[in-house]
């Protein structure tokens, strides 16, 4: 297929794609599908649209992550904000990038490009907060993923009744939360935690530490006077947390990254029988977003955690 336009497309984004006018995107998809059939390439069942909104430098890794999810049949729509009313688009078999779109048209673009009758997940990697609120109307799921999330979290709290929200940090914390929750299956751990004094979190990422603390604050019966302390230790590693300690009357409850970083350990006191070794698993963007694509429902535990996290400082 010949490129129809040569505009200002982001370098490195969908490098195998063809540049077309916005109005020609659907026709381009149809031509590519026809080419695919001629090549006898296997067809894939499509299950969702993933819309990624963010600055150009955030779109390239997102596109690569979606490509690496595996055989999941999704159409990816990658949009960077700008001031264009007639933006340039680049199309591949199952993705389209739209460069420099004026924020006011974001929801129109998504409405035109999303697959009908299938869920749409918005992966928000940056952009105007107003557009974020607008796009909530079109999203079955809104996944936040920005470095400084305070303003976005404030906007998100107002959207809880309109769509299912989450933060990709919450996904990365799933195993940490599960490990602690499984320790709480043991009655002696629950009894001990009822006399919680301090939660100490050593986090590689401040907002992740706050979100984890917010989850504990909103989930546990919180004794009066119990405190939360979060220390941020910047590391090169992908894990959101390094160590979590719940100081109680009895022995501490601890989650701690193990040497080698392939696993972390969950222990209650010194009892080895109740300890768990938990694989940290891959924390790549593709694995995190791949996990999120399997979720459709509103996550009340996340919503409560987010409300609590906004009040907690790292």
């Amino acid at each position: 297929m010949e490129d129809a336009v040569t505009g200002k497309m982001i370098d490195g984004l969908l490098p195998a794609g063809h540049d077309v006018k916005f109005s020609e995107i659907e026709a381009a998809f149809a031509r590519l599908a026809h080419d695919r059939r001629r090549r006898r390439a296997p067809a894939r069942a499509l299950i969702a649209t993933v819309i990624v909104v963010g600055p150009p430098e955030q779109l390239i890794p997102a596109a690569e992550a979606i490509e690496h999810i595996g055989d999941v049949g999704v159409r990816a729509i990658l949009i960077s904000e700008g001031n264009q009313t007639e933006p340039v688009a680049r199309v591949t078999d199952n993705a389209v990038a739209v460069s420099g779109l004026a924020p006011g048209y974001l929801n129109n673009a998504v409405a035109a490009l999303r697959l009908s009758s299938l869920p749409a997940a918005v992966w928000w990697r940056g952009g105007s907060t107003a557009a974020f609120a607008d796009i909530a109307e079109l999203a079955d799921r809104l996944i936040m993923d920005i470095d400084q999330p305070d303003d976005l979290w404030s906007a998100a709290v107002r959207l809880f009744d309109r769509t299912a929200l989450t933060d990709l940090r919450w996904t990365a914390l799933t195993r940490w939360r599960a490990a602690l929750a499984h320790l709480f299956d043991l009655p002696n751990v629950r009894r001990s935690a009822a006399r919680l004094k301090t939660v100490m979190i050593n986090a590689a990422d401040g907002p992740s530490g706050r979100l984890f603390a917010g989850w504990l604050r909103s989930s546990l019966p919180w004794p009066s006077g119990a405190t939360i302390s979060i220390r941020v230790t910047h590391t090169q590693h992908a894990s959101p947390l390094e160590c979590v300690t719940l100081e109680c009357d009895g022995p501490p409850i601890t989650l701690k990254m193990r040497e080698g970083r392939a696993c972390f350990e969950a222990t209650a006191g010194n009892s080895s029988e109740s300890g768990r070794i938990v694989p940290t698993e891959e924390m790549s963007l593709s694995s995190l977003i791949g996990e999120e694509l399997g979720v459709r429902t509103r996550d009340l535990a996340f919503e409560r955690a987010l409300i609590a996290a906004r009040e907690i400082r790292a």
Partner: protein
Amino acid sequence: MTAPQNSGANPLLDGLRIEPTPAPTALVIFGASGDLTRRKLLPALYHLSRAQRLPARFTVVGVARSEMTDDQFRDQFHASLKEFGDVPKPDDLSAALARRLFYVQGEMDDTALYEKLVAKLKTCGAPDGVLFYLAVPPMVYGTIADRLAAAHLTEPQNADGWRRLIVEKPFGTDLDSAKALNQRLHKYLDESQIFRIDHYLGKETVQNLLVFRFANGMFEPVWNRRYIDHVQITAAETVGVEQRAAYYEGAGALRDMVQNHLMQVLALVGMEPPITFSAESVRDRKLDVILSMQPFVANGDADHVVRAQYTGGWVNGAPVPGYREEAGVSPDSTTETYIALRAYLDSWRWAGVPFYIRTGKRLPKRTTEIAIQFRKPPLHIFSRVSPTPISPNLLIVNVQPDEGISVRFEAKLPGTRMQLAPVMMNFRYGSAFGRPVPEAYETLLLDAMLGDATLYARHDFVEASWALVTPIHHAWASPTAKAPATYEAGDWGPREADELIAADGRRWRTL
């Protein structure tokens, strides 16, 4: 911010995407040095651990006749992960799990073994929720149950303790033996504690049958005699008896495949909608199907059943011997390696709709599928311009190896002429969701630990199934019974199977 009020005993489980784990469990595996344990159970435990589905307190005690220490059992665990679990070398996770593995050696009928087991459970600090897994030959099921009861191992020691028992197939060899075994187990355990495993029910696509039928509004209205012409269920294997000749000689395809796996699959296809997705509700409706099935034997003849044995042939690019030439098989064996049968259900939904089942060893392909063939349209209005007969609509549920669902329908061939051709619309489980499908044993082990018996066979289903199958064996044992037919290894079965279905004006699907 206050904690949610209705979050159960563990406040942190609320909203957790990883499902709650079972209560503290000690898994006691009888037959711990055997093939099933090495190939399936130990890798399943590792993968459950990786998925954080094992409880915080979890202990495995292996029991077998082989001499082994705890450490040697742990070495066997690592070896089985390497060979069958895709874990090339021990990692932190397998090392942590291995530390919870223990071993007890002894003869299954020796009371001393059970004394050692009691002592081992105590010394290793095992929790009081105990799941016994009988991965041993079926003739010792009853003995083990007797000995466990005599050693008070079937009774929990405290209020939050529990006892469950998983029994592998075959569950009995005929109706009488199945009833006797049920009665023997029920002496010590009630039905809610007994889990009769059928690994077919742990397969993702088999479970998806329930979702496909009862979570979609468009299929159920046509899922009946008015629209469905017939159903074909095929379970084809390319392998022969391999190392299982001793077992297979006494079993045959009818006991090995039809009485359990294929009856379960047929029940899922034929069942009425359950009121809820609960173990008893689902199993009640499945039982209705088996109870509504017409007997296969009338006047001493099993006319609706064809049995056959494979002779030498060529499979997967290599010559293979006939069944009677296999090591461990009697040269005049009459054990069937192939079954084809026609079943009818006496119910409003299915009256007059034949269910054809075929299963065999040394067939050309390894595949298991359910094919629902719909009736043809009442009138072929295109016959003048497109005289080729219309292919009836077909809905195919691929159980293995390529799990998915396909629908065949007629479409117009592109062009100026009105020409019709059948096309397939395919949904592939693996590629649509892009996530690995868990092994059946992972699902089933976890369900048993959680006490969920939905995917396990209930005593009355097992007995009802044997009540259908046992008369066939009796008919075959008659001096006037026809000898098994034969088919060449690498063929799709004997001529008699083709004749069975051809007598109804139909034919087996080409796979």
